């Protein structure tokens, strides 16, 4: 019974996201364009470096990493900050808070339909194309299983961070600025735009101690590691799990405290 109410939200989300077909077409064009630019840019970088392996990654490694990072981004970007911010500005949040379901869960599950459509329509095709085109540069074995586990935790961490930042909107009522700051920090420090292997030394160490690298860098490096050592996989997944729990507690706690602050203009 309990699961049913969540799955209803999922279903509504799937139907809703299938409504915007034109948006999907434009998004796919945008992504292809981005990947073309990325391809030629990194090709030029590898050509000028003179070696085949830069920072422990070959050209095809880097390319697979970046292509899948883009696919993961489409899959994970939930626009939570916008959603919360707009609900606060319009007053809709009052109605959502009255629902017999925790707000944090409600928001997640009402978005989960898009996870499913995004997974089948963008992530899976991208993954299959990349795997086919690169002829076995992606090792197909146990690492796939670790990858899936890692992505699930990445989704959770990403959502917690989004929710935490969205909660700030309760105080500031500014959406654009808060959202752009979050987006810029997460995309850069998670290794979504540049693999963390390329970061210079002090920065790299700092980034590994932050939660962001668990979102993109962790699942992708697990996937690309052809000969996984049990120890590295365990450390990566363990770090993710730790951040998963920490961020979840933090975002819940912050939301609970902030809810007392709420002022809503009409509704």
């Amino acid at each position, binding site marked *: 019974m309990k699961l049913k109410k969540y799955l209803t939200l999922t279903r509504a989300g799937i139907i809703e996201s299938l409504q915007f077909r*034109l948006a999907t077409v434009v*998004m796919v064009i*945008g992504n292809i364009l*981005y990947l073309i*630019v990325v391809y030629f840019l990194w090709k030029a970088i590898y050509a000028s470096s003179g070696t085949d392996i830069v920072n422990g990654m070959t050209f095809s490694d880097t390319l697979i990493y970046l292509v899948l990072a883009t696919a993961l981004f489409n899959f994970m970007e939930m626009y939570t900050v916008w959603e919360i911010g707009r609900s606060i500005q319009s007053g809709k949040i009052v109605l959502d808070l009255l629902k017999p379901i925790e707000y944090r869960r409600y928001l997640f599950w009402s978005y989960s339909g898009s996870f499913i459509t995004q997974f089948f329509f963008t992530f899976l095709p991208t993954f299959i194309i990349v795997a086919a085109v690169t002829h076995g540069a992606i090792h197909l074995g146990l690492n796939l299983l670790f990858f899936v586990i890692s992505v699930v935790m990445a989704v959770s961490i990403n959502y917690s961070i989004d929710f935490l930042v969205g909660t700030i909107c309760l105080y500031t009522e500014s959406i654009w*600025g808060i959202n752009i700051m979050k987006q810029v920090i997460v995309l850069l420090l998670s290794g979504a735009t540049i693999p963390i292997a390329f970061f*210079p030394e002090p920065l790299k160490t700092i980034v590994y101690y932050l939660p962001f690298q668990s979102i993109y860098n962790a699942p992708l490096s697990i996937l690309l590691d052809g000969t996984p050592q049990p120890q590295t996989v365990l450390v990566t997944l363990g770090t993710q799990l730790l951040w998963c729990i920490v961020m979840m507690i933090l975002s819940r706690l912050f939301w609970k405290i902030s809810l007392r602050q709420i002022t809503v203009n009409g509704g």
Partner: protein
Amino acid sequence: MKRKGLGFYFRIYCKILAQDLKSKMSYRADFIISTIGMIFTNISGFISFWILFRSFPSINGWSYYEMLFLYGFSLVSLTPVQCFFDNNWSLRQYVYSGDFIKYCFRPINLFFYYQSEVFDIKGLGQLAFGIGTLAYSWAKIGLAFTPLMLLKMIVFLITASLIMIALQNAAAATCFWIQNSFYVLDLAFRFKDYAKYPITIFSPVFRFIFTFVMPIAFIAYYPSLVILRPDEVPLLSWLSPVFGVVFFLISYRIWMYGATKYSGTGS
């Protein structure tokens, strides 16, 4: 209707600008946070740039400082579109809700009145950042600094801006025909991220596409060649001011055509 002169429009612009700034100042927190967000975006863009290119003396025959010059050039040339044409982002909401009809009843140029309503001060931070980057790379490359160079620089910066403005106008105008034009606008906006790379890194096919089909190369590459490589300026660079004006006029026509076809929502 009598045609109004430039002086008239200038006076009107100042009056509307003052009103806009006053209304922005009443949301001071939002303004400050948005400005910080904009600074974050620029810093992160610069860090990404530095991480990518710091370890290579040159990419595809372009030295680090020449790449930096291109980057600064694109930042400065993107400022006008950010500052003066930011209202394009709201166009689809005005059209959708029917509020757009209010602009149709003013005895001044519709396009002018609509765009003048919002002035985005955040863009000025980007301008300062861009000028700083340009000046730094200018000094590092050891380019001469003469009044003629400065004049060329200004002319070609305006050229580059016109291209981006034209792209954004045309993208925003699609909302007169399709419902959800946000994705189209977002796609056009993402072009700016690709403008900072020299077009020579692409294969001939894409060089052609990025020059004639999607004129991304005119946002920074072709105009800046006039300053950067004065000995081997291609014809396209000299022609870019013409292209800029032509593109702008075309986009203005599309925008106005859409606006005059607009029939309101009936409310």
